[in-house]
C-alpha cells in the first residue's frame, strides 16, 4: 500500500465520518491538518481511528500510537503524519512476515 493509496482511503473514511461537507475545504493532501484545516471534532477522530483499526486490524496499533500523545498533539497532526505511521507499521509487519 503506497502512502497515496493510504491517503485516499483516509479521505474516504473522513467523508463517511463527517459527511460530504468535509470536501468543501478542498483537496485533502499530506499537509492537511485535522484541526486547522478540517476542524475535526475529537469524537470524529475517534470514529476515524475505529475505521482504520477495522481496515488494518492488528497490523497497526492505534491505541498505542495515540497513547503517546495528548489531544492537542493528536488533533495537530496532518494526514501525512497519520499516513506515515500506517505505512511504517505495515512495512514493519511485512518485513517480519
Amino acid at each position, binding site marked *: 500500500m503506497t502512502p497515496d493509496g493510504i491517503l485516499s482511503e483516509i479521505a474516504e473514511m473522513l467523508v463517511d465520518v463527517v459527511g460530504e*461537507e468535509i470536501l468543501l475545504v478542498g483537496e485533502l493532501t499530506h499537509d492537511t491538518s485535522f484541526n486547522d484545516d478540517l*476542524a*475535526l*471534532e*475529537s*469524537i470524529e*477522530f*475517534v*470514529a476515524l481511528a*475505529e475505521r482504520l483499526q*477495522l481496515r488494518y486490524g492488528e497490523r497497526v496499533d492505534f*491505541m*498505542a500510537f*495515540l*497513547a503517546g500523545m*495528548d*489531544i492537542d498533539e*493528536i488533533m495537530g497532526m496532518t494526514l501525512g503524519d497519520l499516513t506515515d505511521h500506517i505505512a511504517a507499521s505495515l512495512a514493519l509487519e511485512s518485513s517480519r512476515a
Partner: protein
Amino acid sequence: MPDLLAGGTRFHVQHIKGDGPTVVFLHGLVLDNLSSFYYTLAGPAAATGAEVVLYDLRGHGRSERPPTGYDVRDAVADLVAVLGALGIDRPVHLVGNSYGGVIALRAALDRPDLVAGLALIEAHATGDWIDRMSDTLAVAALGLEHDRVPEQLRRLGARKEARMAATADALLNGTTLIDDLAATPPFGPAELASVRCPVLALYGEHSELAGAGRDLGLHIPDCTVHVLPGLAHTVLREATAEVRDLLLDWLGRP
C-alpha cells in the same frame, strides 16, 4: 464493532478486552462524549490489562438521540443494557466525570450487584446543582433556538463550532433532557451512607462542587476524597496525568 444495539437504542461503544478488572467510563452532559476518556484515561487503563468499556451516552457523541429517556435512572438502565449486550456479567468499576459521576453513584445505589467500585471525578453529587444546571441549560436552549446560532456559525465558516452548536440545539430543544434532569432527585446523607462499594472522589480545589466532595467523604463509609490544588471543574482535562495516576493506583489496590 463500535455500534451496539442495547435496550432498543443504538450506542457508540469502544470495548477493549483484557484479563484485569472491568472499567467502564461515563462522560458528562451535552457537549461531552467518550472522546474525553479515549484520549486520557482509557489507554493507560487498558495498558494495565483492564477490560475497558467506553460509550457515548444516549443523545451524545455518535450514539442515537431518542426524543425521551434522559433521567438518571434511564441512564442506569442504558448502562445495564450496554453491559448486558457486551456479555459482561461480573461487577464493574465505574469511572464517571461530572454528570457521569451522578450516573455512576445512582448505579451503585440501585444495582449494587453490578458495581465493584466508583471513581468519581467532579461529580454533581449533592447541593443545588440540579436547579442551577437545568436553568443554565434552559437559557442555552432558548439562545440556540432564537438566535439560530448553528446557522449563523455556519455562515461565518466556523464549521466545528457550528456542528457543536447544532448538537447542543438538537439535544436541548429536541429531547426531554432538560425536563428529565430537573426531575433528578439529589443524593441524601442516608442514601450516601448506604453505598457499599469503595469510592474514590476527585475534586478541584476551586470547584463550585467541592462541597459535594466533602459530603461524599462524610457520609460514604469507604470513600477516599482527593482535592487537586489550583483547579476548578475541568480536572480531567487540566490535570490528566495526576488523575490518571490516582485512578490507576486505586484500581490496582488489593
